[in-house]
């Protein structure tokens, strides 16, 4: 195993930000870490990178305890939300910054730098200054600056958050390919479901400073461990703390007929919004009885405020393996 955190605890004053976090990372793997804002994702990365001291627990790299090591001694490099290129250094000087600190010989350094510029598809930008680059180009240079260190572990903290949506989707495929080609193991933090699925070989869900579920993205999507994970990562209707209906089991109906059939459940709802996504009509339905909303595809157009029925077979109701209450007590 490449990286392992063992019961990692982080407190700010007396507020627990990370509560006994255990995550694993294998060689060459990309782990997506998804969670809502303020769930402790960035703090976890900073602890692993050595930028924040931990309040308890251990961090192991290849079974070796690095908890006491400073950031600059760890074989871990972190990349941030913003590119944070040094504004007074050229693109090349930014890229080889870490090698220079390490004392690499100048020739080797420049060659590695040029090679990196090729890889990030910015050849000829050697002498440019960061302000001359677009946001996406800057973030690519920041990635090069991290990759050139050949870190055993790369930590990416929502690196595309500052980019506009279109650029985001093209750059993330590109980054994934680059990481795979370089065979770098990475933890990729995001709060975007799609991004987490695309980027990660494996997925971990973090909420309120705890890892609630780990697994392949599709597994987590289809079998959320509890209500919180379902609400964050799956599409469907959460019935209560124990039960959930995936969106593909629900049909939208405007008559009462189906309801009376055996083995079906139905909830009344009101259309709150409608739009088209990827060629499908979508509606968002409020379900007053549950106090929840759900987005789902519709076979025809509905107008806002129209009353509808959400119908699903009883045997498609999914029961969470974990109970949220038990989690909180732990």
């Amino acid at each position, binding site marked *: 195993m490449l990286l392992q955190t063992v019961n990692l605890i982080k407190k700010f004053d007396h507020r627990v930000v990370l509560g006994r976090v255990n995550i694993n990372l294998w060689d060459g793997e990309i782990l997506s870490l998804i969670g809502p804002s303020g769930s402790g994702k960035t703090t976890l990365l900073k602890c692993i990178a050595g930028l924040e001291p931990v309040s308890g627990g251990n961090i192991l790299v290849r079974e070796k305890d690095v908890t006491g090591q400073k950031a*600059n001694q760890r074989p871990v490099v972190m990349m941030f939300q913003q590119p944070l290129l040094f504004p007074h250094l050229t693109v090349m000087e930014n890229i080889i910054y870490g090698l220079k600190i390490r004392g690499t010989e100048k020739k080797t350094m420049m060659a590695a730098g040029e090679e990196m510029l090729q890889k990030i598809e910015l050849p000829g930008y050697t002498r440019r*200054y960061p302000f001359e680059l677009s946001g996406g180009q800057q973030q690519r240079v920041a990635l090069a600056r991290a990759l050139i260190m050949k870190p055993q572990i790369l930590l990416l903290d929502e690196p595309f958050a500052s980019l506009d949506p279109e650029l985001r989707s093209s750059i993330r495929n590109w980054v994934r390919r680059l990481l795979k080609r370089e065979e770098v193991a990475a933890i990729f933090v995001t709060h975007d479901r799609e991004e987490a699925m695309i980027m990660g070989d494996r997925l971990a869900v973090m909420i309120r400073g705890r890892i609630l579920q780990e697994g392949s993205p599709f597994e987590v999507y289809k079998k959320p461990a509890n209500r919180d994970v379902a609400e964050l990562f799956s599409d469907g209707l959460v019935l209560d703390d124990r039960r959930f209906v995936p969106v593909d089991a629900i049909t939208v109906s405007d008559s009462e007929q189906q309801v009376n059939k055996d083995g079906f459940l139905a909830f009344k709802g009101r259309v709150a919004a409608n739009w088209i996504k990827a060629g499908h009509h979508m509606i968002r339905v409020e379900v007053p009885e549950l106090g929840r909303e759900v987005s789902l595809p519709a076979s025809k157009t509905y107008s806002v405020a129209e009353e509808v029925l959400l119908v699903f077979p009883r045997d498609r109701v999914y029961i969470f393996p974990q109970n949220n209450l038990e989690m909180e007590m732990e």
Partner: protein
Amino acid sequence: MRSLGLNNHKPYLLVLPALIFFSLFVLYGIGTVFAESLNLSLNTGSSIVKYYIELAEKPGFWSGLILSLQVSAAATLLSIIIGVYLARQFYRRVPDSIWHALAWLPMLIPHFAAGYLAVLLLSQSGWFSGLLAQVTLIQETSRFPVLVNDKNGLGIIVTYLWKEIPFVLLMSMPVYRRMDWRYEDVVRTLGGGQWQVFKTVEWPALLPVLVETGIILFAFIFSAFELPYLLGVTYPKMISVMAYQWFYEGSWSNRPLAMALMTVSTVMVLIVAVVLLGLIQGKRYRMMRGR
């Protein structure tokens, strides 16, 4: 910054009073000094730079000039080094403002009053000399090194440090407060230690302010009269004291010499200023400001 039309008169009205004041006094003043330093009586074929030649031949001029340069350069550099170190440590370790206020105390008193503190503490019969005697390092006052009214201007330098380190703090603390500390994480994750953090994150942000501070300090110390007059020696004499005495204490015949000397020191300060400003005119620092 408001993008008003260029022909709008309002900004001119705002800066005009101060501009008139400075033109009337400073520009006119320095112009007159330069004019009076030249020998414009065109009889008997004497050189137009007669007073400069006379100045160069004056005993004490060269040693005084060198002393002035030494004292100003040393006091400026040391103030900046110690001041920045203190600002950094204040920002990182001693955030309580009571300590900052204590360090600013010296700004409250005039330079010449600070000169008296130097006498009290650093003279041969001063408090530090007494302290050394108490720990039996010296037995009599004459064994204590001459730090006040000494030939090398050590007392003057120390007193300027005491007065100017707080000034450097005043100028550099806001830079620390505005600094983007996320860059520190970048340096550390890329393998840098404290020194690299200073070099890559703090120094580029500090440099423009330090250049400005350095120029102000050097110009001030190079031409200030009060401290060198009180804590200096008769020979070598710092040039500001020399000029003051030629201008004010002696006969009027020495005035052109004083004017020539003042012209020389103005030119030297301007040269130092231009050289230092050149340091931050490079592309990288324009980038910093454009950020």
